[in-house]
């Protein structure tokens, strides 16, 4: 898949640099990237939206993730590895976002704001999941989404997040128990209402 665009449709005159890669040498050509984007973007956007709780931020981070993915030297092994690498970039971007001054930290955003701002509560599962997710820590949200929505193994989540597989196992166990308790509470509250 590693080839340069020869169509010239998107070509920019490149700068020759001795010993460095050519300026237009991207990991894949525009058509291959368009296909990869169509297949991977919905999932990545869902991940970023659910973990950040903010559609606008998720869109920004998604675009930046793809840009960094294209500018980086991608791992070998085809689309499965590309996708994992993309999630790793997105996870690092989320972490960088949370490391910024506390005024912009997701931890400070009130739960009601998270639910109302994005208008996510119009669908049942979202209405059930959003309040519970808002009460989880960012790292827990990431791990839960990667494990249960994306179906990644502990080892794969460890690669994406940079934590150890044993640590993921324990964190996931705790996070799952916590969110299950919150979900059950909401289900019970819904039944009573």
């Amino acid at each position: 898949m590693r080839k340069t665009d020869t169509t010239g449709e998107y070509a920019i005159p490149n700068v020759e640099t001795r010993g460095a890669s050519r300026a237009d040498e991207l990991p894949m050509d525009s058509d291959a990237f368009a296909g990869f984007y169509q297949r991977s973007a919905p999932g990545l956007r869902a991940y970023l939206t659910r973990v950040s709780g903010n559609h606008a931020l998720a869109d920004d981070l998604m675009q930046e993730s793809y840009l960094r993915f294209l500018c980086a030297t991608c791992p070998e092994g085809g689309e499965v590895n590309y996708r994992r690498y993309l999630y790793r970039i997105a996870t690092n971007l989320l972490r960088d976002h949370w490391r910024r001054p506390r005024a912009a930290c997701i931890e400070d955003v009130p739960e009601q704001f998270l639910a109302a701002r994005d208008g996510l509560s119009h669908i049942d599962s979202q209405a059930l999941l959003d309040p519970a997710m808002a009460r989880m820590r960012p790292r827990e949200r990431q791990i839960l989404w990667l494990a249960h929505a994306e179906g990644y193994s502990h080892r794969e989540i460890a690669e994406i997040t940079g934590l150890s597989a044993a640590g993921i196992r324990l964190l996931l166990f705790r996070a799952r128990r916590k969110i299950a308790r919150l979900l059950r509470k909401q289900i019970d509250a819904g039944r009573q209402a």
Partner: protein
Amino acid sequence: MTFRTCSFEKEIVQALKDGHWPEGCGAELRAHVDSCVKCGDLVLVTETFQRARNESERAAPSGSPSLLWWRAQLRRRNAATERVVLPITMAQTFAWLVLGLVGVAFVVSQYRHGVQWASWWSEFVPSHALHVLVSGTGQVGWSSVLLIFGFGVLALLSGLVVYLVSDKS
């Protein structure tokens, strides 16, 4: 907190992943999930997340792949340009630094040798300096002119060497 895995966990995870839960699973497994808190949590959480993912995926992602691809190309090009410009800037800075040091060293050395600054400067007006260079008969000797010229060349060569070294690295 006790951290033990249930023996049915792998089977349930696989059934959930393949979309076989609950219709494609046996009565024994379903009964186990009803009675086991851990497996109940696993099913509840996985089903909720999978539904949420499917619903989120229906929303069309914003942004055009061709635009992203073009922006990535532009970013790469900018990075390549920066890689080229950096050694030049470094060499330029280094050359100025060397030139400054040489100038200071020259002034200090001349001062120690007891040059009469007032008379030296009055004779070193540009027109006179030109005359010195052309005719070679001025009071400022060839040695000083050559010294200044040599230091200038040294500064330029130093900059060039730094450029070549940093460009190579």
